[in-house]
């Protein structure tokens, strides 16, 4: 694998939650880099802090201390409003339960993030058609989430995640709610995003098979990062 500049720099991140009067540490001095075009899997037991770390990198949670820089922007110093704007253009989200808006069609769900851009209606249509084609769901554009299978819904979610051409894609257990066949399809799709489109993907997973698709697997245990494992899939 050639040496590329890190697109994500995580430095000395501490994060804790308050539970009543108690402070529960979740992440303890986390430092690592993710290079552009890398497919990283975060693994670890429940409660190890992997989803929290993903949320911090995606700018939807705030660290107690430490810095996170994504694409040259130190997101830990951004305000909530600035973060919202930053997320809109820099992060694509893929969730375990797809999280599509049930009253919108597949097309409209994918179009949703584009409403925050200055694109015209025809421009948005062009982008959505392209994204749905990329996930092989052009023929399901007018279907509502309830009319799609789990795998198809997740593909719509991926189309929504890539529609704004974000800097990073974050996926929280993207195959956690899918059968083996659909999970394989989604992972293949994510691999294609990395290999063909050069996307940087950070994925939280419990599933070793899913993690096996990543270039690098990082293990978190009680909020502490263990040494990296380079997957066979490493380029």
């Amino acid at each position, binding site marked *: 694998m050639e040496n590329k500049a890190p697109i994500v720099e995580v430095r000395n991140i501490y994060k804790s939650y308050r539970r009543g009067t108690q402070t529960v540490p979740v992440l303890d001095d986390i430092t690592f880099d993710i290079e552009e075009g890398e497919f990283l899997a975060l693994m670890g037991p429940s409660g190890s802090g992997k989803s*929290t770390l993903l*949320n911090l990198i*995606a700018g*939807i*949670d705030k660290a107690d201390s430490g810095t996170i820089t994504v694409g040259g922007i130190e997101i830990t110093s951004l305000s909530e*409003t600035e973060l*919202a*704007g*930053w*997320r*809109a*253009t820099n*992060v694509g*989200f893929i*969730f*375990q*339960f797809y*999280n599509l*808006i*049930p*009253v*919108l069609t597949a097309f*409209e769900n994918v*179009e*949703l*993030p584009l*409403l*925050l851009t200055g694109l015209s209606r025809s421009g948005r249509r062009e982008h959505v058609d392209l994204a749905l084609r990329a996930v092989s769901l052009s023929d399901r554009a007018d279907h509502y989430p309830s009319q799609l299978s789990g795998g198809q819904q997740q593909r719509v979610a991926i189309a*929504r995640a890539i529609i704004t051409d974000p800097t990073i894609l974050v996926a929280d257990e993207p195959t956690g709610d899918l059968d083996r066949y659909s999970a394989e399809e989604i992972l293949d799709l994510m691999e294609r995003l990395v290999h063909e489109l050069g996307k940087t993907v950070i994925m939280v997973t419990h599933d070793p098979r899913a993690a096996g698709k990543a270039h690098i697997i990082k293990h978190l245990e009680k909020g502490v990062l263990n040494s990296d494992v380079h997957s066979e899939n490493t380029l």
Partner: protein
Amino acid sequence: MFILKILFKNAFRHKLRTSLTVLGITIAVLAFGLLRTVVGAWYAGVEASSATRLVTRNAVSLVFFLPISYKEKIRQVPGVTEVGYSDWFGGVYKDEKNFFPNFATDAKTAIDLFPEFIIPPDQKTAFLRDRKGAVVGRKTAERFGWKLGDIVTLKGSIFPGNWEFVIRGIYRGAQKSTDETQFFFHWSYLNESLKKTAPYRADKVGWFLIGVKSPDVAPDVAVAIDKMFKNSLAETITETEKAFQLSFISMTEAIVVVIRLVSFIVIVIIMAVMANTMAMTVRERTGEYAIMKTLGFGGWHISGLIFGESLVISAIGCASGIALTFPAAKAFGDSLSQFFPVFIVARSTIYMDMAAGLIVATVAAVFPIWRAITLRIADGLRRIG
């Protein structure tokens, strides 16, 4: 367009709940509109009163009469153009439930003083020629099926006996707000009978109606008239027609206050119902709002969606309520025309309905918006799983 589509789709995601809320708002707006119209009907006489008409009555009370001889003295007061007089007759047609206001009046002057009562010239002439003639408002004539030339007998409650009248004229109002239920006849007919049956009650009137040159001279004229009869056997109070009408309303002021209060309580209740609907809605969609936030939608966008949804529900209910107010007011007004001769949904009532709808939508959305805005994305996402 896209946002509007989301608003409507969100609003009707729970069809039953939204339909019931819309129904509630419809009924509330309808009730509010009707109650406001009742208040308006209460004040219809006041609103229809003229600034160039004064009323002189006995200073002690309206139930005490004034001598007819005051008429000529009043006419001498500078600024007075015309003087008429009336008595509340209180006649009953067949049954007490068939109430309508009826007066013995100085026919010629009454017609001149009330240009808002439009009587065809031939009917006016016929009325003035016939001592037993009477003029009746269009609504009362329609109510009892009276036509020109019909003989109508009223049973006197203040002036005992059966009194026969011939319908010589049917007036209609110049404006929608003109009372079309009145019945008036020649005071001379009443007075002549009283001279024979109860002479001590003859040559007396209930009040004088005075036309003045302009509204500006009305206060001076009123003072001059009352001064003229100071220390007489029958002292007077002269006031504008509006004040005269208001003095009747003041007797029932408490009822009006209660009706007004109830009309606002209805809105407060529906506000609570609507707020509950919106709170439930937003609570159910916490995860979705968190997703939208992750996609980059900010507080203003989320607020807009919630307020928009609240506005859609409220607007549909409000529009239905307003649409139903007109036929309901017509039915209500028709069935209670004896109590509310003028029962018109005022434009101001519609504006108040709309304002109420907007306030309900706004208040109902405030707390859910606050919750959605302050929602931490991580907490919202956790609720989905």
